[in-house]
């Protein structure tokens, strides 16, 4: 199958053109955040603080990498199950986040928000974290370092292999499991 090369920040034209089942090679910056980082980002926004990264066209990877060995930018990294981030996603999509990388289904609220704002949800295969790590060229912690593996991180990736799981029309690869 043909692989589509895309770069971040993701434009609305690029994200709206993607369709379920398409294989993608993603390059550029992705932000790594999972449960606790999402809670803190949302609470900070609620207090009126500016976002800790530029959300326009941003892609968030739901992951918590293992520690990096010396000489490597990151340890093993792969998607965590996305539904736990569902309560936070519509707010972030509304602020410009245009891509999410995870595994598993999303709530109707998240899908509705994706359709409204032209966002896309990519699947990375769970449990191939040693392979996915080889697509990471650089990594740094932005904040919440006290959370260890759950810290908010910025990754630079090159040709990370993903698949479009839910597109901006609301179509989903998960046929029987909404």
């Amino acid at each position, binding site marked *: 199958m043909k692989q589509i090369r895309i770069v971040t920040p993701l434009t609305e034209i690029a994200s709206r053109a993607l369709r379920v089942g398409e294989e993608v090679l993603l390059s550029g910056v992705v932000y790594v955040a999972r449960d606790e980082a999402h809670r803190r980002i949302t609470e900070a926004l609620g207090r009126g603080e500016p976002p800790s990264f530029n959300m326009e066209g941003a892609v968030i990877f739901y992951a918590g990498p293992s520690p990096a060995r010396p000489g490597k930018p990151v340890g093993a990294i792969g998607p*965590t199950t996305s539904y736990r981030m569902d309560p936070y996603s519509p707010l972030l999509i509304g602020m410009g986040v245009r891509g999410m990388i995870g*595994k598993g289904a999303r709530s109707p609220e998240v899908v509705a928000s994706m359709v409204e704002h032209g966002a896309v949800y990519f699947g990375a295969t*769970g449990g191939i974290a*040693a392979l996915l790590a*080889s697509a990471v060229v650089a990594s740094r912690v932005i904040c919440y370092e006290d959370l*260890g593996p759950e810290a908010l991180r910025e990754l630079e990736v090159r040709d990370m292999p993903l698949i479009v799981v839910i597109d901006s029309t609301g179509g989903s690869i998960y046929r029987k499991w909404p």
Partner: protein
Amino acid sequence: MRDISVDMIIATVARLFTDAAYRLPDDVLRALRAASDLETEAQAASVLKTIEKNALVASEGGYPLCQDCGMAVVFLDVGQDVRFVGGDLFEAVNEGVRRAYRDGYLRCSIVEDPLYERRNTGDNTPAKLHIRIVPGREVKITVTPKGFGSENMSALAMLPPAAGERGVIEFVVETVGRAGPNPCPPVVVGVGIGSDFEGVAELAKRALLRPIGEHNPLPSYAALEEKLLEEINSLGIGAAGYGGRITALGVSVEQAPTHIASLPVAVNICCHSNRHAATVI
């Protein structure tokens, strides 16, 4: 009595967790290859090949198999003629876990307070320890770093006895179906039947330790494993949930005596990275 130094427990637990985190067990690799041969859906077949490739990369030692290096679950079968010397056994197991996760660059995923503070303990302790006293003068140590994407999809039911085999099958298949793509299929399914509330959950976890393809010694339960596998695979979830014929690599059932009023069933789901390692000292 045979004296066993707790230092030996520390070293063995540390080695087993490191092995488990970097090397996919042979039974899982064999099951993945068999699954690849059977899968007819292109995307799912491609995922299965990728999982095999990931195992190869991890075995080279640069990265563990998965970033979720799990909760450290340890089973000790302790011979009753064994005496542990030189320190506290529980602390020795935790020290083994600590060393494996630190020296093996494994992710620490345990929070001290489950509800309020949720602060990471930083060394993946405490381990979840199951101890059984058995005859003899040996100690069998089995470790399994258990990922929680799949643990979260597990379930338990106290069925009425009248539910029978059909009731058990329906509960297991529904649980795997509801999990859908979340637990990183193709999954391995551990089923406990009988015992009591917490006992049935432990049976299900122990079932996950049995090598895939090795059946329950009782023909009736071995047949149940086959039926469950067939019905689960007919769900069509497939590798990564992209749709396909292979949703589970294997189903193991462990049973135990129970009360006249009940038919407890527990389903412990594990992702395809069903990591475990064992040794006897």
